């Protein structure tokens, strides 16, 4: 049977917060029994937006990771809850029953993603429901997806096998796969958030010109060639999607008529090596 899945494209999110605010609009001071009790006016982030800057001025990028409930198929919160207070629907959505879950603060702590929030006033754990109350009325997507103006969010109602095919063909990833909870939220271009880059610029010192077409070779610490790139008309290059904290790298820069330069980089974070003058 068809189940719901959310796909978020990191490259298309620029932190406009429409998803976050539409979620506030839907749930603050609004009760939707039996799906959810009202979200408090302030404090909760049923869809949180995480920020990551990479590199250094003037070669930077900034990515955002919208983080709703993952609606895991192997959800820890379901196991942690007593009296079936948290349950999974046939369509894949995980719901915290606002009545049965009363007083169960342990549900909040059970989630390694940190997407369950404690409502102090109502004494109940709360989270994103994929707007199940709207889907059951015939809506095709939750409020966050409807509100997204950049096309960064896609809501898919497909069979699990079909979803796995999409995951494979579109190179989707899940956030923290090591948790092993089989989330139903997938990310596109997640490397922009989780992986690092080495960038820089190449210039010709004697003529003070950008070195367009310089060959930059990225080697691993022991000198094995990983990838080569040509600089653009500003002399800029970037090697992206490197594994975080992956240690020692070497950069070799070649340009006809100039002596080769080599740099060593210890990847402690995404780094812009600045201008390499030949």
């Amino acid at each position, binding site marked *: 049977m068809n189940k719901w899945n959310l796909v978020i494209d990191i490259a298309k999110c620029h932190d406009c917060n429409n998803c976050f605010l539409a979620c506030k609009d839907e749930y603050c001071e609004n009760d939707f029994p039996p799906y959810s009790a009202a979200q408090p006016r302030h404090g909760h982030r049923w869809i949180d937006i995480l920020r990551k800057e990479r590199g250094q001025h*003037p070669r930077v990028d900034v990515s955002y990771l919208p983080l709703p409930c993952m609606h895991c198929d192997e959800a820890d919160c379901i196991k942690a809850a007593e009296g079936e207070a948290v349950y999974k629907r046939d369509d894949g959505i995980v719901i915290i029953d606002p009545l049965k879950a009363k007083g169960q603060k342990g549900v909040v702590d059970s989630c390694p993603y940190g997407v369950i929030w404690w409502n102090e006033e109502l004494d109940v754990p709360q989270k994103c429901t994929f707007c199940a109350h709207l889907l059951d009325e015939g809506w095709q997507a939750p409020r966050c997806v409807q*509100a997204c103006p*950049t096309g960064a969010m896609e809501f898919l109602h497909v069979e699990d096998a079909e979803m796995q095919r999409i995951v494979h063909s579109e190179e989707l990833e899940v956030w923290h796969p090591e948790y092993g909870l089989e989330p139903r939220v997938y990310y596109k271009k997640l490397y922009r958030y989780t992986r690092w880059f080495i960038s820089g610029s190449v210039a010709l010192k004697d003529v003070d010109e*950008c070195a367009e077409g310089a060959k930059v070779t990225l080697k691993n610490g022991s000198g094995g060639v990983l990838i080569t790139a040509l600089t653009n008309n*500003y002399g800029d290059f970037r090697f992206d999607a490197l594994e975080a904290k992956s240690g020692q790298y070497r950069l070799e820069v070649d340009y006809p008529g100039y002596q080769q330069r080599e740099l060593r980089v210890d990847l402690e974070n995404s780094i812009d090596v600045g201008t390499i003058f030949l």
Partner: protein
Amino acid sequence: MSHIEKLTNGTTGGPVFVYVKDGRIIRVTPMDFDESDAPSWVINARGKKFSPPRKTTLSPYSFAWRSMIYSPTRLLHPLKRVDFDPDGKRNHTRRGESGYERISWDEAADIVTSEIKRIKREYGPAAILSTPGSHHLWGHVGYRHSAYFRFMNLMGYTSAEHNPDSWEGWHWGGMHQWGFSHRLGIPEQYDLLEDALKNTEMIVFWSADPETTSGIYSAFESTCRRQWLKELGVKMIFIDPFYNHTAGMFADKWFAPRPGTDNAMACAIAYVWITENLYDQEYIKARSVGFETWKDYILGVEDGIPKTPEWAEKESTIPAREIKALAREWGSKKTMLAAGGLGGWGGACRAATGGQWARLMISLAAMQGLGKPGSNIWSTTQGAPHNSDFVFPGYAEGGISGDVDNSAAGYRWVYRMQLRPTRSSINSPMGQHIPRLKIPECILDGKYEWRGKGFCGQSIEAQLHKYKYPADGYPEIQMYYRYGGSFIGTMNETNRYIKAYQTERLPFVVNQSIWFEGEARFADIILPACTNFERWDISEFAGCLGYIPDSTCQVNHRVISFQKKCIEPLGESKSDYDIFALLAERLGFYDAFTEGGLTELDWVKRMFDASDLPQHISWDDFFEKGYFVVPMPDDYKSTPALRWFAEDRKRDTPDWGPHPESQEEFGKGLQTTSGLIEFESSSLKKFDPEDEERPVFPKYIPSWEGHHTTPLYSKYPLQLISPHPRFSFHTMGDAKGSWLNEVKDHRVLKEDGYYYWIIRINSQDAEQRGIQEGDLVKVFNDRGVVICAAQVTQRLPPGTVHSYESCADYDPLGKPGESADRGGCINILTPSRYITQNSSGQAPNSCLVEVEKKER
């Protein structure tokens, strides 16, 4: 189960569906179109078809409306300052410090109207000063140009004139190079989307962040268009001291010049083009005047300083080799210059260097054949295919005021509405005025002189006209009828405004406001207004028009929405129209104001009838459905902006101006005396050829507050830029218990439970000052102190800090006007000095500050 109604309304950030249950708004969403709505346009370009999604987009602040309607700071009753007695002690100096007591509407209306009568009797109506904020809710009946002007013009008042805050440099500079006074100096943008999709190879976004500023009022309608251009391989370059949010999504290259030095960079680009023959010499020869003399300035013949990339590097910090690489790429690719976020505008124009920047942008675009296929000034936000023949007014057409002096009512709308124009002799060019940026000087010093009434769109020369306060024979101000509370957040060096409130020179202050915030806290009487969700109105998505003719070419579908009264006004609040009617009754002009008792809904119907809507939809159907999508004509023909000028043809675009009087042959050439792009400005030459601050030719003139202004720079070594905000619309959406406060990049919640305004600071600058992410800091200079939360970032070069303008609230830690503000009114720190002596615009982006960690 109770019934949920799905109604319609409009906001500054887009039209909305509003869900109402049991007299309470429960949901506000963008609109999805159905099959009965008009089809979307399709553009064929480079073998692909481009057509927008069948829905509207919505700005972040519009999603927060429900929290603003049901806000803890909503004013629900008329209030009187406890120590204000109109018949006894007024305690003027206690304004902003003493509390309020609830009074009835009768009492409030009696006090306000008896003060109006007393002042009229003793001084005359011009002793009443009034002004609203710029972005007064949404809806053409209730808008400030409409109900507010109608009431004020009948009562009589001195208007605090708005400076063209988004246009500044284009208005005071650009207009002298190419006219467009009817657009306040910014260009037409018709059909440039199709032109770009077909022809453009590169876009240079210079001081432009459309993902943040949305053109104006047009939400994220243009986002999909930038995505299309990117998919086609159009390269996107960003020049902005801040790695802005459009750059974050689209930049192929980012240049961050030191604030105020963009003009040095622009001169150096021209230098490369001239010395390497990378510009359109034929176009320059045929379509401009004065280039050869300006060329001498660029090459250094005039002043001995060639404007080389090496020279510009010293000013801007951008490496000379990169300026050369940019100039060469630009000179060899068909390029759109997205100067500012609308096609014009941009933070760079709101600076001491703003007038020269706008002129240099026009100069660079001209050198690349401005108006030829793929080459123009275009910011991606306007220029979608557009039905300009379908008449529905913009708010700037005056709505129900028929104010032909201060709105665009005279263009067509006053006749269509069959209105008797409301005019005030005081609120006409020969009456009395005060520039809103100088309200404090006028009140405290009792005199002020300046040039240009405010928005000066009548002609190129209008801005040169000299004004003085008090005008001859007119009285000094005795009463301030303020609408809203924004100025402490939006004007400059704003502790001045607090001093102007706390003086006996201002005997009476009334504030009509929705929320208890900002300046509302300085009033003697507060009149509680309601939002546009609590009254009837009608409007169009991004429909301002007036000085932005066909502003609706920003959106992908023209959407006219019927703004239904979704709920009753909260508490005792009233619609602005009803408040004005109540006062008009006591002042004897109720019949004139309401035209014999018309309600807001009556006016909405009259506006519907006066538009082209009845040709397409009945009133009953419009009332029921709540919106209408304007169809495109079957035989739509694209007329790209300024193509006619490049090809020396008669203008074929649907633009409204310029006025025929200003042209040799109407419709042929630009509005300048020569009809051409004037590197040598004939209007400035006629006015004052010796004006060194605003020379006849565009030049690089270092900022009067910047890296050259030692010793100030050694005391305050950080240059502050304060662009228009990302999440709020000016003050709309900020503070007042709004959900926007929860947005991590808008405010930061600290341990004391307070949501602090953000200042962004480069990591090196932060480290030198021992500042870490989220720390509370003091941002200060000689003008004041603002407490902010630090965001430590690499989105800025060292030496530049960034904080959006337009905090809605003012929250002094001690005596108002003299103590640190923790509300976040960054404009307390920006200079009140005009751009130049004769350019009466604001320059907030020329500002030096220091930042230090706030110790407990």
